[in-house]
């Protein structure tokens, strides 16, 4: 194998990091980006692409049109090669942003469903892309040549099959052909660059990339480097297509290549780390490392360590998740915690195996299958290539449900207001809301294939090519549709505040409360503070905790009950993503002292309350207690004192916290080690720290790339965390 092994990897990484910073600065000038960092490279000003519509609305819908447009985009996409990287390629645009209109206007859902979605603050997910996972190993076994052959084989086999979508194979073929064209042009570009390169080592590296990519147009990856390069291509087409892509159980995906190459003496750890760093530089996609194999064995391998090491050395946003379990390699957890505290970029994330596996099995799945469901998204898991989920796309706002219930009760002259009555009505409306969620998902599953099918992901799933139908159209084995609840603390504290101040202490009447809510606490700051200063969710054993657990359980039970009326499963989780602002704007003042249209609480986290900080152990216990318990997460989001990184005591304490939360059934831990002064300075002048990384929620991003509103979210969390 031709390698550039003589080059100093550290120096090359430094060059690559510099280049990444240049790109990040340029992107920051384009405007805020409230999302994962992605690895997009700014496009040259003369690069433009406009899709060809096939509908009077100006949109392009259906597999054939989507595939043809995507192929045209890839065929015009400029090649990109960095001579210091070991992997060629870079992407510059998002195809999904060209979906205009986003949905085919001929396909509308009922006015009643529209109305229910609005009333209950539902983000319905209709038309939402991706949010399930490719089986990378399937793709690596086929290569792009094998994919093309497979598509053509099944096209022939299914040519008279009435169950197949007629344009589906056209779309798939175009995806592969467009990708192959892009790879070939990039290989050619690397060769041209090599011809003009004076430095012999860089020249050799460029030629190696040219040769490797010539081969990968059709060939099946054979080595560790080729596997990484193939993954780069596949991830890029997924990311461009609809923002998707995920790196699966990455240590296990790459382990065979690593073992083969190291045994053959053509790869050492330093080179492997460099390739992994280049893979992460191309795009910090979600991946899981460590964990338990289907047979119960600990999956930690040398590759798991190398992946951690690569992100540690890079110090850019990263989305690697370590799966924590009872019998894991203790040294691996120790290393992960140490890097978390040292790097201060919120990486890695920690996943709780017990809660995820036992929960998922409660849906009727086997232990073996539950162990294959890996963390591949912001706060979510999926079985690569076999499960469709729309995870993180569908949400219901508990605060809206609560508001409807409260106002309905107060408008009913036949009842005496009480928390008991309010609870019954809250339950009733929760059910109506979840039914509306399920109806929306049903509609999505009926029509998404004819609007914007999941073509690149179909290529690495089991079923779509064989059956001639898109993943959204019933060709996968499992359909476990997401329903995430939001505003848990807002509502739990509202119940607790009413119970304490109105019912028990009689400090104000129900009517007075309603007047304050309607006036947004105008002239009643003391009453607002009184409603805030109660025994909140998160203090441990409080009434707020009681209500939070009760709401979460009722939500989960209702979801599973509503599920009975559908052919797919519904899995409850608790997560707001970074949409606490959006959800807050949906609802007026709430009895927990929240002002109208201000943000709701984050994810499953308690609200900080007037005195701020909840201790990490209290937080960990609170969030473990509200897990909906069916294998989707209710993440723990914690701002961690950077002082913990000072000595080994901090590492050990953090490790114990993570282990205990896992043992209690916690499913995900997003731990942000924030430097208070730096964050506050960067909030005022983002250009000061263009490369400061924070974990906004399940995703990690450059702080300076975020909008002011999103930065404020991070700052508010920091200020109320007691750090």
């Amino acid at each position, binding site marked *: 194998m031709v390698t550039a092994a003589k080059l100093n990897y550290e120096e090359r990484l430094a060059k690559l990091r510099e280049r990444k910073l240049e790109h990040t600065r340029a992107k920051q000038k384009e405007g805020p980006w409230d999302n994962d960092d992605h690895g997009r490279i700014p496009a040259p000003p003369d690069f433009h692409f406009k899709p060809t519509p096939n509908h009077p609305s100006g949109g392009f819908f259906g597999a054939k049109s989507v595939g043809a447009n995507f192929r045209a985009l890839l065929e015009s996409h400029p090649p990109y090669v960095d001579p210091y990287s070991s992997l060629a390629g870079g992407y510059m645009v998002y195809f999904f942003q060209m979906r205009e209109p986003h949905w085919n206007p001929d396909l509308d859902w009922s006015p009643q469903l529209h109305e229910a979605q609005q009333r209950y603050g539902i983000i319905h997910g209709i038309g939402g892309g991706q949010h399930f996972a490719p089986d990378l190993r399937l793709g690596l076994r086929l290569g792009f040549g094998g994919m093309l052959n497979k598509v053509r084989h099944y096209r022939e086999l299914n040519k008279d099959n009435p169950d197949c979508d007629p344009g589906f194979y056209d779309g798939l073929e175009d995806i592969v052909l467009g990708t192959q064209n892009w790879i070939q042009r990039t290989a050619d570009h690397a060769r041209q660059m090599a011809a003009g390169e004076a430095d012999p080592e860089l020249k050799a590296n460029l030629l190696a990339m040219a040769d490797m990519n010539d081969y990968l147009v059709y060939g099946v990856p054979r080595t560790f480097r080729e596997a990484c390069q193939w993954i780069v291509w596949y991830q890029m087409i997924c990311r461009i297509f609809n923002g998707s892509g995920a790196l699966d159980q990455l240590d296990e995906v790459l382990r065979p290549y690593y073992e083969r190459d190291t045994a053959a003496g053509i790869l050492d750890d330093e080179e492997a780390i460099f390739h992994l760093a280049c893979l992460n530089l191309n795009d910090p996609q979600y991946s899981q490392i460590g964990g338990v194999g289907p047979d119960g064995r600990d999956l930690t391998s040398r590759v798991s360590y190398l992946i951690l090491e690569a992100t540690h050395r890079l110090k850019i946003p990263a989305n690697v998740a370590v799966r924590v379990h009872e019998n894991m390699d203790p040294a691996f957890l120790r290393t992960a915690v140490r890097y978390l505290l040292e790097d201060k970029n919120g990486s890695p994330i920690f996943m709780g195996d017990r809660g995820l596996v036992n929960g998922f099995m409660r849906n009727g799945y086997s232990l073996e299958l539950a162990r294959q469901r890996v963390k591949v998204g912001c706060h979510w898991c999926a079985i690569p290539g076999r499960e469709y989920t729309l995870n993180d796309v569908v949400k219901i706002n508990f605060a809206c449900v609560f508001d409807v219930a409260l106002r309905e009760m107060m408008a009913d002259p036949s009842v005496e207001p009480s928390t008991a009555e309010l609870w019954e009505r809250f339950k009733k409306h929760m059910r109506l809301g979840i039914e509306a969620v399920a109806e929306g998902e049903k509609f999505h599953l009926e029509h998404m294939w004819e609007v914007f099918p999941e073509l690149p992901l179909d290529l690495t799933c089991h079923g779509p090519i064989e059956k001639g139908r898109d993943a959204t159209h019933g060709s996968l084995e499992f359909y476990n549709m997401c329903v995430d609840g939001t505003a848990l603390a807002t509502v739990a504290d509202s119940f607790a505040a009413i119970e304490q101040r109105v019912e028990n202490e009689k400090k104000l009447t129900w009517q007075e409360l309603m007047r304050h809510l309607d006036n947004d606490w105008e002239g009643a*700051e*003391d009453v607002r*503070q*009184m409603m*805030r*200063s109660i025994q909140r969710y998160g203090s*441990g*054993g409080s009434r707020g905790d009681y209500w939070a657990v009760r709401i979460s359980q009722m939500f989960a039970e209702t979801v599973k009950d509503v599920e009975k009326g559908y052919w797919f499963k519904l899995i409850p989780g608790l997560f707001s993503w970074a949409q606490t602002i959006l959800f807050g704007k949906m609802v007026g003042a709430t009895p927990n002292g929240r002002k109208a249209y201000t943000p709701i609480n984050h994810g499953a986290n308690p609200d900080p309350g*007037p*005195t701020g900080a909840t*201790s*990490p*152990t*209290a937080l*960990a*216990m609170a969030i473990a207690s509200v897990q909906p318990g069916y294998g989707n997460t209710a993440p723990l989001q914690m701002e961690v004192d950077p002082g*913990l990184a000072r*000595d080994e*005591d*901090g590492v*050990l*304490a953090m*490790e*114990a*916290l993570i*282990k*205990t939360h896992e*043992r*209690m059934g916690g499913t995900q831990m997003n731990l942000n080690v924030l430097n208070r002064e730096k964050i506050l300075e960067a909030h005022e002048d983002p250009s000061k720290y263009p490369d400061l990384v924070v974990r906004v929620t399940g995703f990690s991003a450059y702080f300076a790339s975020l909008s002011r509103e999103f930065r404020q979210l991070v700052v508010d969390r920091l200020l109320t965390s007691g750090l």
Partner: protein
Amino acid sequence: MDGYIVNIQRFSIHDGPGIRSTVFLKGCSLHCFWCHNPESIGLKPDLQFYPERCIGCGRCVEACPNGVHAIEDGRRVLRRERCQRCGLCTETCYAQALTLAGRRVSVEEVMEEVRKDSEFYRTSGGGVTLSGGDPCVQPEFSHAILAACHAEGIGTCVETAANCRWEDLAMVLSETDLVLLDVKHMDPIKHREATGVSNERIQANIRRLSELGLPFVPRVPVVPGVNDSPEEIGAIARFVAGLSGAQHLVLLPFHRLGEGKYRSLGLEYRASTLAAPTREHMESLAAEARRYGIEVRVG
């Protein structure tokens, strides 16, 4: 049994091994001018006022039977001298501008709170630490909490300056797994200047303690102008090196995080002009202390 505490802090990780809950007890027999827990010095509750949180609702004016609170000419007036520390005003102050530092609680109430983190103690090898104030000011109460912890399999640690009758200290130590021993100065006169008391009884207690075979960690708050010279730290290190059972010596840099508490208590902060020692200075003092053959850590 009841006693006075300031609060219980969960997830303490610098007050003994593992994840701990630290119970801050009221009452201290020393009056170190740099103390960062001034609200814990007196045994009885103290009224704290945070003006930045005050929303001017006037509920405290109505609640107080002694006229401590008033709004005169639009200005918030606080007459601390009238305060009986009953806490009635704090109960109506929902904005938490007024709080009472210190409350009387039972051993069971303390246990109820510290029990919450039992799982974390088990995983991390942690437990409960009594701090303050000084736990030896309420020896029976401290002893009862520690014994209750032991009865539930929770490890115990006590942070003390050992400035008390040996009998009281011995009672507390009988249920203690690890002692964090505050050492300020070896010179009795300078010790008195800095803390208000001489160190003779303290040193005698420490010597007796070291003969018990109980593990202990001497900890020195390094305060500019008080004990931050190589000679002064060296003298402490020599003393520690002569004791058996000391695990290691910890040097803790002075900080000013307690300044806001002085303001809230209406007290003068006499350490306001002191600067925190630099990392380099702390390391040089640690190097000096290591010359006496002991393990030294900088906190």
